[in-house]
């Protein structure tokens, strides 16, 4: 099994606050891996580091074996840095989020970020823009008609496959919550990713919707040969769907394993599942 994603000693520190601390993990080809942990454990920050929204303070990230991000404490951070392994990553490599998306990493957001005033169709079509070969002048003068046609066709197909074709002319901000989540996933898929990062896809869903989502994630994973890495709080979903689970607390991994191992891990029960019992 080949590795799709690998994080090595990734630390993200904001001023004096360490959000992610020396995090190392890997995700294999074709796996569904979950990242769980209490609120504020640094899960979303980890996603933001992987997708290039934040530059890590220290550490390296590999995608399909290639180094995509690497950094070590610089400037002010030299003094402030509280983590370890500061000399392990001499190379500095920083990429903007769009470049990382173009490599084949797509994501959704915890608090849905659709292009709210645009239609469902446009939302997905925009994801096709980055593959457009036409320059701005030929696009303006409509010399790219063929390509534009192809983009629209692909978008149409994707919407049909995901069962969103009836909503295609609706304004995305006016969709019901569950549909917005689904559209966000559709939009991420439209970028032709090989790795899909889902940030709390089941947040705010009832049990029935969660079941549908479980099936949906499985379906797209198989249809598009995806590797899925997701943050989730719904334990039923996590335990049912994941091949492996990482548990994060205070920015550090406290456990790793398959669902059964995690459920029986005393540290996890203490840090995380213990809270669940009260709820």
């Amino acid at each position, binding site marked *: 099994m080949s590795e799709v994603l690998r994080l090595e000693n990734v630390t993200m520190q*904001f*001023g004096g606050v360490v959000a992610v601390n020396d995090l190392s993990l890997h995700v294999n080809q074709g796996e569904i891996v979950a990242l769980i942990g209490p609120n504020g454990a640094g899960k*979303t920050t980890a996603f*933001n580091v992987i997708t290039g*929204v*934040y530059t890590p303070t220290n550490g390296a990230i590999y995608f399909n074996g290639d180094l995509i991000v690497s950094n070590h404490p610089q400037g002010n951070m030299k003094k402030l840095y509280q983590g370890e392994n500061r000399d392990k990553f001499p190379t500095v490599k920083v990429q903007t989020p769009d470049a990382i998306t173009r490599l084949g990493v797509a994501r959704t*957001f915890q608090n849905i970020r659709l292009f709210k005033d645009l239609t469902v169709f446009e939302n997905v079509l925009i994801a096709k823009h980055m593959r457009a070969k036409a320059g701005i002048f030929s696009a303006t003068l409509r010399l790219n008609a063929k390509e534009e046609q192809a983009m629209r066709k692909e978008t149409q197909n994707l919407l049909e496959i995901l069962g969103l074709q009836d909503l295609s002319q609706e304004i995305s901000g006016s969709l019901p919550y569950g549909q917005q989540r689904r559209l966000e996933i559709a939009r991420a898929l439209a970028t032709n990713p090989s790795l899909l990062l889902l940030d709390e896809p089941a947040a705010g869903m009832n049990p029935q919707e969660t079941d549908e989502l479980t099936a949906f994630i499985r379906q797209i994973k198989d249809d598009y040969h995806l590797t899925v890495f997701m943050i989730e709080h719904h334990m039923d979903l996590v335990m049912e769907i994941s091949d492996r689970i990482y548990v994060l607390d205070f920015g550090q991994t406290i456990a790793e394993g398959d669902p059964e191992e995690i459920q029986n891990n005393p540290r996890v029960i203490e840090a995380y599942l213990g809270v669940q019992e009260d709820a």
Partner: protein
Amino acid sequence: MSLTTILQHCLTGISLGGAYALIAIGYTMVYGILRLINFAHGEIFMMAGYFMIFSMASIPWFISVPLVTAATIILGVAIERAAYKPLRTAPRMSIMISAIGVSYLLQNLATYLFTAIPKGYPEIPFLKKIFRIGDLSASLVTFLTPVLTIILVFLLMQLINHTKVGMAMRAVSKDFETSRLMGIKIDTIISITFVIGSALAAIGSILYFTDRMSVTPFSGTLPGLKCFVAAVFGGIGSIPGAVVGGFVIGVVETLLVAMGYSTFSDAFTFLLLIVMLLFRPTGLFGEKSTDKV
């Protein structure tokens, strides 16, 4: 240029800077709380100039000054209530456009009421008295402005750091929503901010126009923008920063004019702004903030 001339210009510059500092505080406080460039602030300052002209026509200066300050405060708070409060939940661009709209309205209103012809600014006799220190000579207002500025800023800092209202203001500028949840009356705090900003603009206006002798409906635009730059330079939201920014811009502008680059003195201010935004966007004393994704 002889040393005396340079010192003379520096003195004029510091005096101009003091007036700028007082106006810049209005920008920095409003921005700190509402995240809004109050484009109308320069026009409030201009209107204060006209208030003084009309008040001094029949009333002695020592009654005029508090009267003008009160009128300016009413104008400032009224603008906030009418033009900014209804847009509190609107996108930031809308409030900014509203601020530009108010500034446009005040300019046109002033042109209509007072015509575009410059109106002479009344003299407060004792402010114009010439003082000499060694070779330097200047009117009292030149000496008074920086001193008065420092005193007012000191009082303001006491208010902000050691009173309940001040604490509420600091809380609102840190986090609007949370302070609301904590039971702080946001609208009252915003009004107080405008009261302070407008009062300082009124005093700044008296000091500024006494030296310049005339007011037009457009007298507020450029000083207004320069004072905003002063606020950015010092670090938006920081009152000492605004004061330092005001003095720096006042002195450099005066020196540039003295060296014969008067057309570039305005451009310099903006150049300073751009350089600052590029290399230290948080300004001299500003705090860094990160956006949450």
